[in-house]
């Protein structure tokens, strides 16, 4: 299966970096072996992209495809991330501990 993600962040803050590493870990661990595409968009460099996608908060993760999903936050709340992306079953299958929780506040 193919998963295409677009992650909107504001600058290179701790919160942005947390979100990026949490998303990378998701691809490597939960979606290991799948076609996982990640694009990081910094709204400071490309505000028009945020405008097109009507993004308000950062970080915001947009999952494209047949069942588009959006979630906001630094993706540290793993259970919520998996539930929102419909991936809860995958995590239960591999029994791994998943992404580490990082608590950055920007």
């Amino acid at each position, binding site marked *: 299966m193919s998963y295409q993600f677009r992650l909107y962040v504001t600058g290179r803050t701790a919160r942005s970096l947390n979100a990026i590493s*949490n998303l990378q870990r998701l691809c490597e661990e939960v979606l290991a072996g799948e076609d996982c595409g990640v694009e990081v968009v910094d709204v400071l460099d490309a505000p028009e992209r945020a405008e097109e996608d009507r993004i308000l908060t*950062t970080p915001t993760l947009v999952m494209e495809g047949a069942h*588009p999903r959006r*979630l906001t936050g630094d993706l540290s*709340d793993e259970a919520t991330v998996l539930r*929102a992306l419909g991936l809860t079953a995958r995590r239960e299958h591999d029994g791994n501990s998943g992404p580490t929780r990082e608590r950055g506040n920007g």
Partner: protein
Amino acid sequence: MGEVERRARPVEKIATGIPGFDIVAEGGLPEERSTLIAGTAGSGKTLFSTQFLVEGIRGTGESGVFVTFEDTPESIRSNVLSLSWDIEQWEADGKWAFVDASPITSEDATVAGTFDLGALLARIRHAASKVGARRIVLDSLSALLTRMNDDIAMRAELQHVMTELKRDGMTIVFTGERPENYGPTTRHGIEEYIADNVIILRHVLVEERRRRTVEILKYRGTSHQNGEFPATIHDKGFLVVPLSAHELTQKSSTKRIQSGDETLDAMCGGGFFRDSIILVSGATGTGKTLMVTQFLDGGIQNGERCLLFAFEESREQLNRNALGWGYDFEKLEAEGALRIVTVYPHAYTLEDHLVRLKREIDEFEPDRVAIDSLSALERISTSRGFREFVTNLTAHIKRREVAGLFTSTAPTLAGGTSVTEKHISTITDTIILLRYIESGGKVLRGVTVLKMRGSWHEKEIREFTIDGEGMHIGEPFQHVTNLLIGPMRHLSEGEESLL
């Protein structure tokens, strides 16, 4: 600037261009500050803030950004088309930019960790730099707060967005929902803390009538007028009616004009003053409308343009009455010397009447204005609203050096003071009383000039009659006292000499 560098700048204001508001706000909205417009549903928040951008574009040529959290840009564009605000054109001209932050219904936004409003700020800045905006509207912040469901985090984030935009030199207006007209300022109780200034729009039922008001609750570091001011929404947008104390300092003319009756002119010491307000008070049937007719005729005879607002009689009735006294209103209207506007008092709120009256005056540019009767309008308003109405209208008339004659219907046949008079007697320059006078088993009519500011005037009460040719003012009453005040009695010859 002195030798010491000034770190704090006094608060400057920018004119909103919303009629009347800048008077109440003593100059406009504080520049490079944030102002909350709070109100219940239907109070006109979105209109007020939209107009803030519109007047910026039309007035000083300042561009604006509209951030919408609730309605789509399409619905905002079409909602204001009826006001002849062509947002699409301004967008094409690079004067107006939308930031569409309305909810995306197809996708559920889940929160998974900490977040900020970096994208919103980046989009606003992007839009602002695209059009070179100085004015920003966010409508409504309450809708955003409801959606994000994390008031504490949002408060800090919104504060950050406001600080950054102010640093960019933006003047910000944002709206907030109020659950009720009197009570907590906003739904979330956060909006007012983010704002430097708070303005409340109310839309309340008073004596079974809807009444709009504007109140400036907080203006950080600068002055404003206190209290609720009446407002209205008309076909040109939002409008505030200021209780214009400082508008009353008008220069007064010493030029005399004819009242339309030579004897009355003499009683006033040579006619009315050019820019004066004359109040004619009398019970029903005493001849107020006839005096109005003669006043208009007196102007027309001297080549003046006259405007009549009739709130009690239809055009047909007026024309018929005037014809009975030998005045052809229809012909005079056709010639352009006269314009008659008949309005049913209950057709509009008092604020709407005021807007319409002022507009008619501005368009027709009369030398004389008559209102028959002013007391018909008193019934559709609160007493404070009525006083504000008269103050405002009077100021408008005087500024144009127009003579205004208003009639007031006395509450009883024997006379007495109407509410109208109580409220406006200090505003009027001249007061003429028409009264029924019982004498020798007959009811006669009497007229007197009670007040004539800046001039000698006759103190006597004269008898007058009305016939097919109009009003005939005769000699002063003799041997009668207490005609106007208290029970009347006749004096014997002997008693009179004692007075």
